């Protein structure tokens, strides 16, 4: 366990190394990035083997940092952080594999990429709100440059929109944290100190602080109606960045809601839960319907991410340990599946067909031109629809079960979203991969143009597929870590509506 902070340091060191290596050759930079990502993942898995689930955070590092403000360099982990650290390692490794074809300014690409990963690890391991916030913002800036430099459609617009939305969200979070710190006369920024300070605020102030914190984080989680940055950002981003954005960065927002907003102001969740739940349900269904009519293949996936993240938010709003466990499981599951879908669309299909328009793909029988890709996408699509046997199923089922306890209506309406997800996924599979062509000559001419699937693409796909199947068949691997963490004293207070 105590190795976990190394994931952060390794990533930042890897970023510097990749930058240096990039001045020599692109291959060296790639090698550095892959080794760094694998190391980070390895450390996460190694920590997991020695992890005994409990309801306490295990302190990894705890040292005074800025004693004048009571800020500590405090890293800690529990089952939730561990789950997400492992996810980050997996997504980072797969992302490096799927960006093997980056030739332009490769060193800089991987430097930004690894800096982003380092920030993400930092967020998942921070136990001090200040430190959490620092890592949270560290993760924002590289996203901008990844998209603006190496992105595609409308990249500068998409990048700027994403950066401004993220930063506006973090400004709300900062305002909320400082409000608690100042008005509650907290001695420091540890979560427990802030939680103790927040209790001294009046009820209206607590409700307002919760709204600031939760909205700030939920913007990054793609909560309706603040989700619009997500599809444009995902579409504009280079494949690896879309994978990270949808796979990991949106989880930062959800994690912030779960780890910071809810425990700090537990009594406010009860008040806001209906609002959050209905916004989440609106997101699930609205984004699903929008995905159903998209003409750009990548936008379908972009909106599907928003829809799936709606389930996470619904799980949080249900305010019970079952739903929250489902939400964390869904974070993992969606991280893997969204990564896979973006990899197929952005890397495997687009790089070969040079179009993402479904109308154009309809005329190419991709299932014959690139069978491997078609198989991967069909499996990923099934997982995304929530088919039993894949990770999406236990996650969404657990969330719906938890939501049922909170409100039967929420669960029923949200379940409609599962149908919508099936509809847009099946449409995408049908149109993009099982298109028809009238002339056999077309087929051969296309076939010549399509480069074969490379080994990094195969390796990355298999890695992610294996993860979704493994968790689909044996979800208690992760639930076994997650559930005890949700019974910590801070979370107990949340489930009991602020009663300690």
């Amino acid at each position, binding site marked *: 366990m105590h190795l976990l902070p190394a994931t952060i340091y390794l990533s930042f060191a890897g970023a510097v190394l990749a930058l240096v290596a990039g001045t020599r050759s692109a291959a060296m930079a790639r090698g550095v990035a892959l080794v760094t990502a694998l190391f980070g993942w390895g450390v996460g898995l190694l920590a997991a083997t020695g992890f005994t689930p409990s309801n306490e955070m295990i302190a990894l590092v705890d040292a005074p*940092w*800025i*004693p*004048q*403000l009571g800020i500590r360099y405090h890293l800690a982990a529990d089952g939730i952080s561990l789950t997400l650290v492992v996810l980050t390692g997996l997504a980072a490794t797969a992302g490096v594999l799927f960006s093997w074809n980056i030739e332009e300014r490769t060193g*800089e690409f991987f430097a930004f990429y690894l800096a982003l990963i380092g920030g993400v690890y930092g967020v998942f391991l921070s136990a001090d709100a*200040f430190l959490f*916030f*620092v890592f949270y*913002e*560290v993760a*924002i*800036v590289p996203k*901008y*440059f990844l998209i*603006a*430099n190496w992105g595609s459609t409308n990249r*500068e617009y998409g990048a*700027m929109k994403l*950066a*401004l939305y993220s*930063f*506006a969200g*973090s*400004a709300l979070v*900062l*305002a909320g944290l*400082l*409000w608690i*710190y*100042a*008005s509650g*006369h907290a001695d420091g920024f540890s979560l427990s100190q802030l939680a103790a300070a927040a209790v001294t605020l009046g009820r209206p*102030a607590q409700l307002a602080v919760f709204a600031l914190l939760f909205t700030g984080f939920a913007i990054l989680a793609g909560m309706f109606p603040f989700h619009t940055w997500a599809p444009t950002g995902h579409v504009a981003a280079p494949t690896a960045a879309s994978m990270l954005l949808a796979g990991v960065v949106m989880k930062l927002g959800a994690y912030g809601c779960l780890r910071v907003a809810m425990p700090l102001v537990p009594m406010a969740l009860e008040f806001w839960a209906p609002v959050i739940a209905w916004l989440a349900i609106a997101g699930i269904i609205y984004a699903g319907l929008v995905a159903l009519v998209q003409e750009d293949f990548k936008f379908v996936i972009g909106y599907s991410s928003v829809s799936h993240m709606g389930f996470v938010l619904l799980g949080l709003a249900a305010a019970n340990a079952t739903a929250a466990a489902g939400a964390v499981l869904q974070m993992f599951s969606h991280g893997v599946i969204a990564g896979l879908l973006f990899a197929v669309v952005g890397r495997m299909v687009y790089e070969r067909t040079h179009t993402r328009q479904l109308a154009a793909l309809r005329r190419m029988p991709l299932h014959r031109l690139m069978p491997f890709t078609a198989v991967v996408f069909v499996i990923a699509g099934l997982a995304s629809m929530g088919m039993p046997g894949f990770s999406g199923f236990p996650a969404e089922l657990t969330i719906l079960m938890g939501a049922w306890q909170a409100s039967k209506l929420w669960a029923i309406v949200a379940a409609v979203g599962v149908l919508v997800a099936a509809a847009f996924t099946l449409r995408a599979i049908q149109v993009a991969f099982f298109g028809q062509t009238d002339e056999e000559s077309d087929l051969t001419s296309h076939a010549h143009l399509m480069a074969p699937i490379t080994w990094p693409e195969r390796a990355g796909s298999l890695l992610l597929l294996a993860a979704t199947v493994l968790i689909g068949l044996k979800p208690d691997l992760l639930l076994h870590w997650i559930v005890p963490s949700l019974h910590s004293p801070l979370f107990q207070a949340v489930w009991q509506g602020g009663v300690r």
Partner: protein
Amino acid sequence: MTYSYWVLARALLPEMTLILGALIVLGYDLLRAKVHTPEERRSAALWIGATAVLAAIVDSIFVGQLGPVYGFTLVLDSLAVPTRTAVLGLTLLTLGVSAGARLMRHPAEYVAIILFATVGFTLMCAAHQLLVAFVSLELASLSLYVLAGFAKDRRESAEAALKYFLFGGMAAAFLLFGFSLIYGVTGELDLTRIAFSVAHTELTPLLALALVMVLVAFGFKAAAAPFHLWAPDAYEGAPTPSAALIASASKVAGFTLFLRLLWPGLGPLAGDISTLGNTGGWQTLVALLAGASMLLGNFVALAQTNLRRLLAYSAISHSGAMLLGVIAWQTAGLGPVFYYMATYGLATVGAFGVVAVLEAHGGCDKITDLAGLSRRSPLLAGTLTVFILSLAGIPPLAGFFGKFAVFAAALRIGGVAGPAGWLALLAIALSAVALYYYLIVLKQALVAAPKPENAGRIRVPLAAALALLAAAAGIIYLGLFPSVVLDLF
């Protein structure tokens, strides 16, 4: 009360070093001007000047006994020593930046005047008496007017100098009028005695008038709205190292002078700003200046296409935050506001340094002139990224913690119910707005492709490279370990 010449000489050692350095710079240049090329004359002047500033830094750190000097004319306390050192450090960086800038006529005089201005800055940091404060402020200001107009072959430089001078002269007149009113009411020049005297009177109309006069001058010196109008023109037209000095060292010195004047001197007239509708005092006025500066600076910066004007409006918005830091003195002391000033100065000198080097290599007026910087010079692009992100307040760079500490302290004054808290929330919201224009700058530097006519690689002179790297390293180091600075207070 002691009037020891020995203590005075000891305390003024940095100033004497600087003056000696300036004289050596001038004398050496006089002897060698015929033999040397302008390039050599500049580097000789810069090396001598830098040595003098370094020696002055050593003098100012190892200053010996803290306490009042020569009666209470000057005071060496926990405010004076760090700010003097910071001002000298920023001057040193400015000298390094000058090494990369476009060559001007009379390089030695330029360096000598920078050193004279610095004498003014260091005295401003320690002045504890109205007259000394005014004289040191004028010494600094007059030098800065000359520095702003130093590029005599450029109309913009003359325009900058004239505007700066007219506004500055007006502000000085206001300040002197304010000082004379304070003296008239209290009969004292010494800040401690003034504080004692006003503590027992209420805010009479005459004192209120004096406060307004003083704050007008402060608003000018800090480039706070609505007294900011000179700043964009001066930053745009002045030679780049002069602009760097005006934006960094001069600002730190100005804030120090007024901090000392307002809290230890006029503290009893501060008023209460924790809730709306409490007794007024100068804090209300400072809060108004802060709010106006943050709003105006951030929104007008959005519309800028000229890089220096953008930096000027960004400076105005940062002044707003620093003014908030002045108010926050009451809950958090000097730490946050000093940290903010010092790290802001570092980032600004650095940003202007990058502009200066670019100007010597094909010009840098528009933001789009930065295009392709990462391919033309990774060093400039990398350091500029650090400076701009620090100005934008992105952790772990120093600009973030500066904002964080100032806002946290301001929120502690009456929480979100009071005007100070509102200003802090406003500032947090505006920092999201500010990110847009800072990212526009970085987009050109790191994303855009170089223009064909301006695509050559840039060779950065060694001294300028060292200055930029030192500034960037300082920002990163202070950002990671802010308690190094907070421990000083």
